[in-house]
């Protein structure tokens, strides 16, 4: 996305709740291509609160992915495998 001209953007959003819902569906991959196209082109680049909100949501998601994924301890993985094989043998 190109950086829009901030000076020309609206400082307030009239439909912040609806906008946040569409924005959320876009980020979650649940919006239709038309909804996405319409919102990104017709609204996001003209609306400062929504533009900021979109980038904030994306940044939070990246941070979550980078910081909140714990891997299973290897001994545990092995022990589960072993238990299942024992189970099979019964």
């Amino acid at each position, binding site marked *: 996305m190109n950086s829009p001209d901030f000076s020309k953007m609206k400082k307030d959003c009239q439909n912040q*709740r609806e906008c946040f819902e569409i924005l959320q569906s876009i980020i979650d991959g649940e919006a239709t291509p038309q909804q996405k196209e319409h919102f990104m082109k017709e609204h996001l680049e003209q609306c400062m609160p929504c533009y*900021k909100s979109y980038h904030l949501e994306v*940044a939070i998601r990246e941070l979550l992915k980078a910081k*909140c*994924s714990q891997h299973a*301890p290897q001994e545990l993985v092995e022990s*589960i495998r072993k238990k*299942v094989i024992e189970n099979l043998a019964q």
Partner: protein
Amino acid sequence: MEEVIREQYSEREKQSIFNQEFMPHINSMYNFAYRLTLDSDDAKDLLQDTYLKAFRFIDSFQKGTNAKAWLFRILKNSFINDYRKKSKEPSKVDYQEVESYYNSEDVDRQITPDLRVEALQDMIGDEISVALNSLDVDFRTVIILCDLEGFKYEEMAKILDIPIGTVRSRLHRARNLLKEKLSEYAKKMGYKNA
């Protein structure tokens, strides 16, 4: 989980499904267990119980369907039945109360806690992890399923046994709560206008 249809897998097939369809999700499953229980010993037990259960009920798993969603649903149900009661967390917000809260005007009141991307970039420690863990378990869950694991709303509805509308509103609320927590951290870190 379509429990009506039961397959009859051979021992060899069972093993291959287990290794090829179930084991690849073990890290995501562990993370889910850990974020639900907030205790690494409980998470280990919950993960092991879930995988053994999945193996025991493997005949109700249909090949070609979403193994990850199937496993997540078993884990979530085991958590509710076996762990939630003895969980170390403070008592849960009454479910009814939580649901009506989503639908109240309060949701609009603080639609976007003021938080800047720049403030997030300074959260290089475990701030976000602590913030996530501090949310009520129902809110924590939808963020994990959606943002970390990439489940679709429809899959989340099945995993959690709730309508899609509830998935959406719960996510909406969960994200705002997470932002509130993060903006508290940002303020502490010295962003005046975080």
